[in-house]
């Protein structure tokens, strides 16, 4: 069973305009890898080459802010990937 991932408008050019997509994985790292398979290029825009979530991207799992790619994902989880507060 997959997680439901909601992405902000910043990423709609990758998701074909969709704000809600499905992805699979037992950790956030696996989920992001699956998202990148489905939507090539998306992962690097939100996760840097050292596997850190970029500073102005916020990821919420079950409404809790997470910064660690090892964070567990459970089937049916609601995951939010949001661009936040990057200036004028």
């Amino acid at each position, binding site marked *: 069973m997959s997680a439901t991932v909601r992405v902000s408008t*910043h*990423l*709609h*050019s*990758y*998701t*074909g*305009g*969709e704000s809600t997509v499905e992805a699979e994985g037992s950790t956030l790292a696996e989920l992001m890898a699956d998202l990148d398979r489905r*939507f*090539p*290029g*998306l992962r*690097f*825009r*939100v*996760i*840097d*080459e*050292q*596997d*850190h979530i*970029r500073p*102005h*991207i916020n990821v919420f799992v079950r409404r809790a802010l997470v910064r660690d790619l090892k964070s567990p994902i459970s089937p049916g989880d609601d995951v939010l990937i949001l*661009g*936040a507060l*990057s*200036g004028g």
Partner: protein
Amino acid sequence: MPTRAKKPARAARKPAPGKTPARRSPARPRRTTIEIFVATIKGAFVLKGDGARRSWSVGNPYFLGSETNHLVRDPRDRKTLLLAARTGHLGPTVFRSLDGGNAWQEARLPPAFPKAPEGQTGPVVQRTFFLTSGHASQPGVWWAGTVPHALFRSEDGGATWEHVSQFSRYVAGLKEQKPANIGETPGGAITHSILIDPRNPSHVYVSLSTGGFFETTDAGRNWRPINGGSSADFLPEKFPEYGQDPHCVVMSPANPDRIYQQNHCGVYRLDRPGVQWDRIGRNLPSAVGDIGFPIVAHPRKQDVLWVFPMDGTSVWPRTSPEGKPAVFCSRNGGASWTRQAKGFPQSNGWFTVFRQAMKSDWQDPVGLYLGTTAGEVWASRDEGGSWELIASHLPRILSIEVADKARS
């Protein structure tokens, strides 16, 4: 009269990955000869000029909202475009168009450092700052300079990028020896002015802000600094082996052994194989000084160049001295300079022009173009003799490139 940018096209409902919303074709003047690629902090724009360089149109933005540092057309095929972009939220990447800007694809492997071993911290590319096509004999080769200091190279037209690790190791060694001499500007530790010797693809120059001017003759494996005679007033040692802050360095298209540099601390000329820079900016009027960001070399005459001085006194406003914008031209390799201000505001013109935002075309007489941080593009059809505003109300301009059918 300045040409206003048209309103952006309405966003497509489902834009494809890496693409901007659908764009309307701008009204194009007949016989487009010159295209000016204007990269701004909110997207990239193309200005199209007619054969007389009198009529200009401004196209709709590419990647509206993205910080676009550099938009470059490949002079080898005259249609491939590479664009360095990021947004406040999303990481840096490179977009490619193989058809002159109609369709864009994102690089499959954008410039990025290798992942550090577990438990160690590694660098992160913050932005690709500088792009240049490779040597004419190496189609598909591109070079990129990033923030933080690093070089990347592509052999497939910008689709995938490889870290030039030897350069990073070299710079890390320099920093270990003298930590203050490899530093950051407010915009980060910038890698720029990647110059390819047209006689030898393995001979490349690179500049670091801050760090200085460096050369490789074996395609990037080994490096050496060439900074003799250029000063670093912000360091205890005024003339260090390295540590200077070159703002913009250009190779004369007429003579690849003639190098001009606009530095944080002056305007310089270097004649290879010499290794000693000559501060030709000392010949500028002392009331103007020789501080600035861009520098432009004439496409056919090695002794002709232009600078755009800015105020480097007191707290360094970095605006046109006394609010009177002017280009200065030398026709004798920097021995003397002529002020060129016709058409610019005569007062209250507080222009700032960034290091990559002034370029020439290849016409005769040469056209010059500069973009300001206030979103204006100014042009001269007569080698700086007179200037006119050809576009305004654009976002802050980070760089300008000129594509010219006359380029040989």
